[in-house]
């Protein structure tokens, strides 16, 4: 086991870290993180629109359309915000102007969506006496601007910023005289890249009539299927994240930067289904892991924190005491480096196995429908039962499953904890004996 941990640290971790630090992936991660506040706030309007108590639900029912507007303007336009944020980050990483990068990616993304004009249809409908069928002018279909458009947004962003970078590198820019203020000359610098980006996408999308959005969605459909609705989509991320953590690396930050765009798309599909009153399609967006598996933090360590509090080893008890409160709020670094769980050949086994076991149980429970599915992005520092309740929009069985999972993790940790505890007590005794013998001298 010790050799194995060493292997992870020396051989497995560096390529994974390099992948997570890859420039485009980093831009995607940072850009998406910049939209999270909107997604958290927006998704809370879903809870207001569909409260878990029946009498409240009946009371708000007539106003659901109005209540959902903030949700539609945030989560429903997720890819739009992300396109800007990602473009900004990527441009910054090349030391280019961030705002230009953001605006160009936004334009590239929007060029992939054709606006429509349905006034003719609306006029006929109005004549036929249908209420609310007033002409609206040109409209942009929102369907592709939310989670469904996320992969297209990523592609648009990379295309736009790379065009900006390459044209700048070969000096294909409009040069302003030196007297022109910098902010003005910067906007002119983006002129040729903007023209190239818009004309290229216009040609592909409008004249070749090639539906880039649909093409990309079709490519990613199988990936999405595996991630969202298969046992591998649950087990592989759990295994990789715990493996990295047991070598001392923030696993979720590495693996998440690759998987978060997909997880977010899965969540958005669920949220959109909830808003439309349809069954939720996906089992495993990130919230599945957050609330059912990472109870107390990566490795499902809340159960271990409870065991530590009652340890016979003075040291472990002390670690338990200062770890238990943060653990309730899913912060477990004090334990990771205090116990320590990092590079610990004994505790690495339950640290990896417990989340895998409760992951399997949770997958089964959610897939057969005993436990509700996740549609809401609740802040990750909520205690797990409360977070699970909100994130599933009021599934009581999810709360019960959280408690069962804590108990299961305690059972799995227990034998390994005992072995480690025994080792610690022996060390403590040896230390006391050593100090006593020096005192007696």
């Amino acid at each position, binding site marked *: 086991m010790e050799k194995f941990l060493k292997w992870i640290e020396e051989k497995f971790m560096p390529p994974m870290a390099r992948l997570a630090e890859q420039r485009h992936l980093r831009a995607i991660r940072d850009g998406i993180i910049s939209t999270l506040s909107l997604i958290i706030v927006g998704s809370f309007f879903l809870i207001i629109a569909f409260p878990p108590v029946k009498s409240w639900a009946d009371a708000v029912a007539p106003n659901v359309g109005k209540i959902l507007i903030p949700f539609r303007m945030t989560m429903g336009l997720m890819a739009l915000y992300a396109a800007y944020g990602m473009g900004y980050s990527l441009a910054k990483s090349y030391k280019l102007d961030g705002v230009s990068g953001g605006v160009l990616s936004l334009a590239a993304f929007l060029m992939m969506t054709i606006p429509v004009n349905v006034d003719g249809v609306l006029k006929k409908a109005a004549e036929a006496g249908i209420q609310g069928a007033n002409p609206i002018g040109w409209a942009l279909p929102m369907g592709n601007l939310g989670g469904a458009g996320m992969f297209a947004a990523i592609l648009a962003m990379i295309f736009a910023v790379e065009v900006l970078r390459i044209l700048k590198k070969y000096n294909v820019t409009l040069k302003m005289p030196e007297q022109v203020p910098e902010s003005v000359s910067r906007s002119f610098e983006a002129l040729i890249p903007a023209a190239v980006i818009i004309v290229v996408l216009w040609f592909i999308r409008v004249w070749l009539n090639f539906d880039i959005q649909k093409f990309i969605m079709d490519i990613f459909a199988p990936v999405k299927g595996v991630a969202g609705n298969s046992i591998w989509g649950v087990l592989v991320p759990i295994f990789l994240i715990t493996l990295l953590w047991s070598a001392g690396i923030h696993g979720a930050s*590495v693996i998440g930067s690759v998987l978060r765009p997909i997880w977010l798309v899965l969540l958005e599909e669920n949220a959109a289904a909830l808003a439309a009153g349809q069954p939720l399609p996906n089992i495993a967006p990130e919230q599945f892991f957050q609330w059912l598996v990472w109870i107390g933090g990566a490795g499902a360590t809340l159960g271990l924190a409870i065991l530590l509090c009652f340890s016979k080893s003075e040291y472990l008890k002390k670690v338990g005491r200062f770890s238990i409160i943060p653990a309730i709020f899913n912060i477990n*670094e004090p334990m990771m480096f205090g116990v320590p769980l990092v590079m610990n050949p004994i505790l690495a086994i339950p640290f990896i196995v417990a989340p895998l076991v409760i992951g399997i149980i949770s997958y089964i429970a959610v897939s057969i429908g005993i436990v509700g599915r996740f549609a809401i992005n609740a802040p990750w520092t909520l205690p797990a039962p409360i977070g699970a309740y909100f994130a599933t929009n009021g599934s009581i069985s999810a709360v019960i499953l959280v408690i069962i999972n804590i108990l299961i993790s305690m059972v799995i940790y227990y034998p390994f904890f005992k072995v480690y505890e025994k080792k610690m007590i022996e060390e403590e005794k040896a230390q006391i004996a050593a100090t006593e013998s020096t005192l007696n001298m």
Partner: protein
Amino acid sequence: MKVLMVCSGGMSSAIVVKAIKQEADKQNFPLEIKAVGTGEFEDELKTGGYDLAIVAPQVKHRMDVFKEQAANANVPIELIVPTGYTPIGAPKVLEQIKKYSK
């Protein structure tokens, strides 16, 4: 002395920072210390006038990026020893910090 700590989200480091501050007060060592997540690190470093940046052990895979950012801001940077990254490990980190105090 002014120190900036960076961890993944700025949450766990807040706990550690508090412990380090208490330890510094106990030892009468003048210390101003703040924790941020990886996203805010670069900007904070540029504007904050820090004497030292310290990096939480679980984000050591980003050390190269941090090093570059710290070099740009002209601030020395050091990785915290893993055993220091707990509330009771504060004295160890304080020792690391003190090495840089003039």
